[in-house]
């Protein structure tokens, strides 16, 4: 993992003290809310329906056991004993008191964490594959590049007041688990004919009010130019992005209105001027950062682990869990274990302080003290010996963290919605809970197979509903919650935006509608066909017929 040196630490410490002074001025009445709001937002502090909400950055989803324990402590001491993992691989606390935030930030700084740029119109947390460093199919560990981007994008003097927020995602695998095509900038590592690794650069993807899939503006960017190229994109956007209309301010609108080719040309012209300047990344710098992400001290193990195979054979529950929640590892004898934060009837992404402490201990025991957060709001232990999986599973079960549903119907992405969020138009969590209850039968869940349901409580789409195989958007119709259903979205390398099936559904009807869609799929799918594949083959019609019988 990356560790702060004295410079990283100094920056975060100075930032805490700066915010402490600002909070004091606010509480003393020297600053009005209008003046204070932009300052608190720069530190991830929102004012929501019940209290302040603090969003804490988890850089590219990497957490140490020590950090997770600190989050558990903050949840207990300053919040109501739980936190919520977001689709940006961050964590937010919903019940924070303004007067305590300086102390919270100081405690976070002790473990190299903060809330800087988790809101506001600048760079947000750069996200990546939750299996980074462990996935068998990665070209390189994406975390080095995320860290390089993190440093460059932290308190950037030129780009701290962009037209709108800005999200970057990086993937280094052919199968994209980081949804890079629906980001302001998506970076996908490729190898060219000369055998060098570089990035395909996509811009203008995004969700929200006007969703777009990103457009490729450069097929291959040599690694040493990563930062200068990003700077060129941002400089074009900062100057030309719309500032007259909040809803048209994201880079996706600029790319669409300018045209991809012309936009690419503007970027290339800007880049020509700066590519050989101070932002060039010397190979030593890339290597220096990469050394932080060196593989842990693996044991030399056989790929075959008889005691593990035996446990699978004798315990069907364990077998089921392994089938859905365990992912192959690049190191022989090791595995990636997914911890589901989607228990039946629970809030997707929520975790109690007790669970955090317990997982921190398990990470120390079984995963070199490392934990990952996925954009699908689950946790990952990235380096578990296959021989340890059974004991891990046995300990996760009583914690409620072993639901074998990763990638299945009840593994729902869900934003906080109207239960917490000041911008919401409808609740989202109760819908997720009800779906998970409706589909609590494991046989049925496995029979349906891989499907991604994503729920947002308003058009801002924090729950990524546009790119759910099944997407649900909560709206308000004359004071009543109602839900729009979209089908056919996907966030991976074949990204697509879902289409609205038809008239929306009331809160009482929406879960039935989801069930109808899934039943329809099961009745018409070809052998071995996933939901999204069936949808792409047959289109909307059969689903419509099921949902709106004449």
């Amino acid at each position, binding site marked *: 993992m990356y560790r702060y040196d004295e410079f990283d630490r100094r920056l975060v410490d100075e930032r805490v003290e700066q915010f402490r002074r600002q909070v004091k001025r606010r509480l003393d009445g020297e600053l009005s*809310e209008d003046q204070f709001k932009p300052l608190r937002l720069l530190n991830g502090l929102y004012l929501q329906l019940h209290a*302040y909400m603090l969003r804490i950055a988890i850089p590219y989803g990497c957490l140490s056991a020590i950090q997770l324990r600190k989050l558990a402590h903050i949840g207990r001491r300053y919040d109501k004993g739980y936190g919520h993992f977001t689709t940006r691989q961050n964590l937010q606390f919903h*019940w924070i*008191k303004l007067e305590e935030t300086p102390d919270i930030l100081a405690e976070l700084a002790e473990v190299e964490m903060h809330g800087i740029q988790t809101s506001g119109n600048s760079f947000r947390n750069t996200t990546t594959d939750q299996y980074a460093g462990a996935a068998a199919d990665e070209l390189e560990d994406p975390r080095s590049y995320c860290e390089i981007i993190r440093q460059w994008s932290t308190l950037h003097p030129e780009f701290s007041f962009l037209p709108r927020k800005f999200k970057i995602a990086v993937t280094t695998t052919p199968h994209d688990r980081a949804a890079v095509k629906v980001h302001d900038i998506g970076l996908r590592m490729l190898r060219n004919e000369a055998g060098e690794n570089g990035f395909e650069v996509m811009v203008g993807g995004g969700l929200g009010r006007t969703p777009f899939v990103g457009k490729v503006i450069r097929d291959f960017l040599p690694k040493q130019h990563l930062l200068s190229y990003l700077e060129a994109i941002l400089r074009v956007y900062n100057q030309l992005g719309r500032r007259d209309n909040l809803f048209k301010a994201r880079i996706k609108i600029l790319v669409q209105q300018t045209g991809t080719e012309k936009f690419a040309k503007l970027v290339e012209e800007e880049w020509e001027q700066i590519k050989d300047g101070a932002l060039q990344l010397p190979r030593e710098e890339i290597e220096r950062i990469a050394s932080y992400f060196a593989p842990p001290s693996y044991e030399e193990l056989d790929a075959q682990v008889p005691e593990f195979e035996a446990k699978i054979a004798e315990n069907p529950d364990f077998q089921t869990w392994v089938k859905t929640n365990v992912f192959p590892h690049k190191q022989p004898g090791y595995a990636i274990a997914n911890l589901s934060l989607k228990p039946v009837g629970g809030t997707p992404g929520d975790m109690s302080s007790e669970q955090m402490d317990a997982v921190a201990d398990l990470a120390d025991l079984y995963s070199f003290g490392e934990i990952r957060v996925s954009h699908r709001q689950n946790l990952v232990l990235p380096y578990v010996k296959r021989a340890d999986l059974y004991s891990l599973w046995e300990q996760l079960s009583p914690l409620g963290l072993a639901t074998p549903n990763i990638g299945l119907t009840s593994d729902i992405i869900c934003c906080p919605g109207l239960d917490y969020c000041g911008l919401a138009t409808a609740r989202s969590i109760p819908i997720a*809970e009800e779906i998970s209850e409706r589909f609590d039968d494991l046989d049925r869940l496995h029979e349906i197979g891989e499907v991604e349901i994503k729920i947002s409580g308003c058009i801002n789409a924090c729950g990524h509903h546009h790119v759910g195989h099944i997407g649900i958007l909560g709206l308000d119709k004359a*004071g009543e919650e109602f839900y729009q259903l979209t089908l056919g979205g996907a966030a991976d390398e074949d990204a697509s935006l879902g289409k609205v099936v038809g008239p929306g559904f009331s809160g009482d009807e929406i879960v039935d509608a989801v069930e109808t869609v899934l039943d329809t799929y099961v009745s018409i799918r070809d052998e071995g066909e996933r939901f999204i594949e069936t949808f792409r083959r047959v289109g909307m019609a059969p689903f419509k017929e099921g949902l709106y019988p004449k």
Partner: protein
Amino acid sequence: MPQAVIASRLRDGRAVFLDRNGRWVEFIQDSRIAQSEPEGEEIMESARRSEERQEIVDPYLIDVVVDGEAVRPVLNREIIRAAGPTIRTDLGRQAKR
């Protein structure tokens, strides 16, 4: 329709209501209910002054239904603010009474 004033308390961000004595209270049952538009304006005026004293943030009037002792906001959003998250009935005001 009767109305009450809701706001966020500056120090801790908790949803609060203006009561008969011009103080901010946690339970909507204890809030001052304005029965007319002019009375609504009057309590909003008092809320704005409190905002200027930097005690609360973002006060506004909400429609409520009064039924004996019980006061219930009309909109879902305000019902949730007054009570707490619907999926965590152990939290918020709903847990205390």
